[in-house]
C-alpha cells in the first residue's frame, strides 16, 4: 500500500469517456482530486453520476481517455475504495443483521472462508458506534428505518477502512437525524485524510461540503470550487430549463 499512500491524487481522469458495451454514457471527464479532499457530483437523474462512481470502482469501463485511482487502474485500487450504495437498491427483506451488513466491509480482508477475527469484530463495533447504531447490531437490517439503513451502509465502508469513499446519493429519503449522523462521520473521515466522492441533488449541501463540485449531464460541464461551479449560468447550461432562478439570487433545480 506504500505506493498508493505516496500517490498524491486520489482520482485523476483526463478526457475520459465512460459507458457500457462501447456506448459512452458520460464524456469529457477531467478530474483531479487530491487525497483527503471532498468531491461532490451534481447533475439531474440519468446524468451519469452513478456511472462515474462505478467507473472509480472499476465496474464500468473507461472507453476513452485515462482514469486512475491512487495512481492505479480503477479495478486494481479496490482494496482502498469503499462503496456506499443507495439503501433503496437493496432487498429490505434479506435475512441479515445490521452487524453482518457492516461485517461485509471486512470480507475482503478476511477472505473467502477464514473465520472472522477479533480485530474484525472490533472494527464492526466501532463503525456501528460512529454512526450511532451500536444498540442495533443484532437487529434485522430490513427492520431499520431508511436513514438507519443508510447509516449502517456508511458504517460498512468505515469498517472497510477505505481511503476513498464513494457515496451514491446517500441522503435520498433520509431523515434529518441520520443525515446529520452521516455528515458528522464524513467530516471526521475527511479530517483524517479519507477522500470522499458523493453524489447529490442538494445544491446547498454541495456548497457546504465540497472542496470541488463536478457538474454532470451526459458530459462534464464544469468542475471546480462550489462558488465557481454552482452559478446560475453554469447550472442553466447543464440543466437547461430545469434550473430556475429564485429571488435571493440563487438557483434551484426542478426535476422534470
Amino acid at each position, binding site marked *: 500500500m506504500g505506493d498508493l499512500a505516496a500517490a498524491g491524487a486520489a482520482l485523476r481522469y483526463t478526457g475520459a469517456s465512460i459507458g457500457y458495451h462501447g456506448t459512452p454514457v458520460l464524456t469529457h471527464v477531467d478530474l483531479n482530486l487530491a487525497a483527503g479532499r471532498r468531491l461532490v457530483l451534481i447533475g439531474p437523474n440519468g446524468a451519469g453520476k452513478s456511472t462515474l462512481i462505478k467507473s472509480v470502482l472499476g465496474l464500468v469501463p473507461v472507453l476513452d481517455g485515462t482514469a486512475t485511482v491512487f495512481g492505479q487502474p480503477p479495478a486494481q485500487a479496490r482494496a482502498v475504495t469503499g*462503496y456506499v450504495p443507495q439503501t433503496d437498491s437493496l432487498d429490505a427483506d434479506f435475512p441479515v443483521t445490521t452487524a453482518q451488513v457492516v461485517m*461485509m466491509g471486512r470480507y475482503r480482508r478476511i477472505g473467502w472462508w477464514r473465520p472472522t477475527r477479533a480485530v474484525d469484530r472490533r472494527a464492526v463495533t466501532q463503525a456501528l458506534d460512529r454512526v450511532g447504531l451500536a444498540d442495533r447490531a443484532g437487529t434485522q437490517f430490513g427492520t*431499520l428505518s431508511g436513514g438507519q439503513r443508510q447509516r449502517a451502509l456508511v458504517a460498512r465502508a468505515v469498517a472497510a477502512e477505505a481511503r476513498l469513499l464513494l457515496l451514491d446519493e446517500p441522503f435520498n429519503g433520509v431523515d434529518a437525524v441520520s443525515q446529520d449522523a452521516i455528515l458528522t462521520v464524513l467530516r471526521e473521515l475527511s479530517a483524517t485524510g479519507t477522500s470522499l466522492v458523493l453524489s447529490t441533488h442538494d445544491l446547498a449541501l454541495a456548497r457546504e461540503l465540497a472542496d470541488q463540485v463536478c457538474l454532470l449531464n451526459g458530459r462534464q460541464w464544469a468542475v471546480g470550487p462550489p462558488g465557481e461551479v454552482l452559478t446560475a449560468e453554469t447550472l442553466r447550461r447543464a440543466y437547461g430549463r430545469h434550473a430556475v432562478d429564485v429571488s435571493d439570487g440563487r438557483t434551484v433545480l426542478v426535476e422534470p
Partner: protein
Amino acid sequence: MIEPFTVPFMARALAELALLAVIAGPVSVFVFARRLSFVSDALTHTVFPGVVVGYLAGGIDGVFAGALVAGIVTAIALTLLTRGGALSDDASTAVVLTAMFSLGVALVSRRSSYTADLTTFLFGRVLTVTPRQLAETAVLAVIILGLLLVGARAMIFRSFDPVGAAAAGFRIGWLDLWLNVVVALVVVAAVRAVGIILVVALLIVPAAASRMVTARLPVMAALGTGLILLSAYAGLLASWTASVEYGFSLTSASAVVLVLVLAYLLLVPLGAVRRRRRAPGHGTHAERSSPHELVG
C-alpha cells in the same frame, strides 16, 4: 413407529432422503436468498432430457451421468445468459424450457416401457435406492457442502448487495456459476430418488418454511434440514402404512413432499404473526409474495 425402517429398502430410502436433507436445507437457503427458484425450475426441465439420454445409453446407472452433464451445461448456460441480461423469467424462456421437457418425453416415448420409465424420471424411485446410489449421494453431499462452505460468505454478500460485492473485488460471474453448479449438483443427487418434479420442492420449500420462524441464515439452513428429515420419516411411514395396512398405493416421494408442503402451510400463520410483530411502520417493504417464489 420405527419398525418399517428395519426393512432394508425402507432404511435405505430413509438414509438417502436424510443425505438429501443435509444438503437441501442449506442449499435452499441460498436459492431463497438469491431468488433462484427460477433456476431450480429451469434445471429440472433441462436435466430431464439428460436423464432420459443417460437411461437409454446406460440404464439406471446412466441416469446419473446424463443428469450430471445436463445439469452442469445448464448451470453454465444460465450463468452466461442471466449475466448478459438475455434471460428472464418470461414467456420465451418458458417456451425453451418446455421444449427441453418435451424433448425428454419424446425420447422416452420411443421405448416400450414408456409409462413406467416416465414415472421413474418424474417421481423417482426412492424405495429401490441401492447401496451404490447411497454412496454416490454421500460423495455428492460432501462436495456440495464443501462448495457451500467455501463460497458462503461471498455468496451472501453477492446476494444482498451485488454492486457492493463487485466493488469489494468479488467476481460476481464466478459466484453465480458457483451457486448454479451447486444447485445443479443437488438436482443430480436427488433426481433418482425423488424425480425431477419433486426435487424443486426440496430446493424451495425448506427455506420458505423456515423463513417463517427465523431470519437467521444458519438457523434457516438447520431448520430446513430438520423439516426435510421429519417429512422423509413421516412421508415414508405414511406410504408404508397406506400400502401395508390399507392396501392402497401412495407414492413415497410424493408423500414426503406433501408432508413438507403441509409443514410449510402450518408455518405460514407463524410468519404472518412475526411480520406483524416487527416494528410497525416498516411494513411497507416488498414481501416475497410471487407464487413462483414458493412453488417454483
